[in-house]
């Protein structure tokens, strides 16, 4: 599978692009031409120039610098969300699929209820309950998404527990924990990776939407959704302030979606006749 991916030009290009963006985000202090917080009211809505490649916003801050600094919260929070989702969903799915019986019953009933609720509304409800804060946004996103993962992982765990090497391991008397970590976890790890990369795009959009509504990352911090929230008021005078973070989001999410598609195809190759 890995070799096929390495021969896939589109995969390499997108992977490279995502790594590139990540690196820019990590080295934001070095790469960004200006401090993203420094305001210069006299110089607001400045047009393109060598000094400000994308101009300045309503408070005279450099848009490009804010965009670059914005990679950190935008990508970082999405990664964090996926990590949390996978951890929670993975544990629940493992427990459910491995122990079966009443544990499975209980977890799966909860999953059913979670999945029958409209997810968008759940996010708002959880944020409302916990208060407006970034951490709560992540919690809310994890909370609505884990059930889906738990179900997927449960299915693959069940498939793997019936495989011979796991049965053998059990016969020779290895402890349950050993079997779980030594055999089953590695087998489903690749599947997890694919599922997660499919959903990072989703997480980015979700978090930035909440930030846009003012429920997530708060104003001065340069997150792309929050930047768009500020740009809303300057729509008439300075459209570039709205275009830049928006296009950035679309490009990044497209990259992740594409990556997910390629990975999914590689995981279950459809045979031609």
């Amino acid at each position, binding site marked *: 599978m890995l070799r096929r991916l390495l021969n896939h030009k589109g995969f390499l290009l997108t992977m490279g692009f995502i790594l590139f963006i990540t690196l820019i985000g990590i080295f934001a202090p070095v790469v960004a031409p200006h401090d993203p917080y420094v305001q210069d009211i006299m110089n607001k809505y400045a047009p393109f120039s060598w000094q400000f490649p994308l101009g300045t916003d309503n408070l005279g801050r450099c848009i490009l610098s804010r965009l670059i600094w914005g990679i950190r919260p935008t990508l970082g929070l999405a990664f964090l969300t996926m990590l949390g989702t996978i951890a929670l969903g993975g544990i629940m799915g493992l427990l459910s699929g491995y122990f079966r019986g009443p544990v499975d019953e209980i977890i799966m009933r909860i999953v059913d209820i979670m999945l029958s609720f409209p997810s*968008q509304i759940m996010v*708002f409800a959880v944020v409302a309950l916990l208060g407006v804060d970034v951490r709560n946004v992540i919690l809310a996103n994890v909370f609505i998404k884990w059930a889906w993962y738990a179900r997927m992982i449960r299915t693959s765990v069940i498939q793997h527990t019936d495989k011979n090497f796991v049965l053998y391991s059990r016969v020779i008397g290895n402890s349950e924990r050993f079997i779980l970590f030594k055999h089953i976890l590695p087998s489903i790890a690749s599947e997890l990776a694919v599922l997660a990369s499919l959903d990072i795009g989703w997480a980015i959009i979700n978090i930035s939407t909440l930030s846009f509504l003012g429920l997530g990352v708060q104003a001065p911090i340069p997150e792309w959704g929050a930047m768009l929230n500020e740009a809303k008021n300057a*729509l008439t005078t300075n459209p570039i302030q709205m*275009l830049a973070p928006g296009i950035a989001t679309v490009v990044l*999410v497209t990259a992740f979606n594409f990556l997910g598609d390629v990975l999914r195809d590689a995981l279950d190759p459809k045979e031609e006749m």
Partner: protein
Amino acid sequence: MIKYITKRLLTAIPLLLTISFVCFVFINAIPSDPAEVALRVNQVTVISEELLEQTREEMGLNDPYLIRYFNWLIDCLRLDFGISYVNPQRTVLSEMIRGLPNTLQLACWSLVLVVVISLPVGFFCAVYKDSLFDKIMRTFIFMTTAMPAYWVGLLLMWIVSIKLDLLPTSGMSDGYKSLILPSITVALTYVSTFIRLIRTNMLENMKQDYVLYANVRGLKQSSILAKHVLRNSLHTCIVAIGMSVPQLIAGTIVVENVFAIPGLGTLCIEAIFNRDFPIIQTYVLFIGILFVSFNLLFDIIQTVIDPKLRKEF
């Protein structure tokens, strides 16, 4: 048939109860004490511990959990959802009724757009698979899945309202004109899903034996596509579209906010900022009930329109 419908109706009841219970737990999980809030709402300035205890007793907050749940449930059934924490002179019901028409209008127009756009596009994408049109539409679909709805809204607002000055930017002051851009924005999020659904479904149907046999019989291509393939996929797609109506209504939250439409979504976001819990609770309950009822409705419709399923029950 009637037996099946009754059975389905009965299975919906526990689900509705679960949803209402979750909503009830939700309002009881909030950090603030309802008695205190109630007193503050009534503009009692000095809140003593005794007064709090007295209010709790009056409000029935000292009763066992389940009894309080049933009291609350009965209130809900009488459409009494309490009063808003922020505007004590307004009931939650009146606030909801104020916002509902705008949201429903928006959702209706979006639904119409979704159906009008995705049906023909999906149809032609399937019929002319791999043609230029199909490829363009597929790229378009791929792009739209990466676009956040709020940004699409801003973009449309900028191009159509500001640059071209064709439509009002926001608010509801211009009647139907105010709803054009918001509806397009909401619809765009769902159009891609349904184009894809219809396209795959039709292609799947085209591979079926009954299409081969229709060809063997020498039926006209147009009649095979319209009468057989389209009708068969419509059965699946109509049900899917119907079941997604509540999602569409929930999806208006963001778009209402972008275009400043005073609907349920705006109400809900304001309530989140103001920590106006009764409103949030009622909104969640409302969407939950919509979800269950639309699922139920279209599940039944599916069995009624499909002769194969009709017979089994």
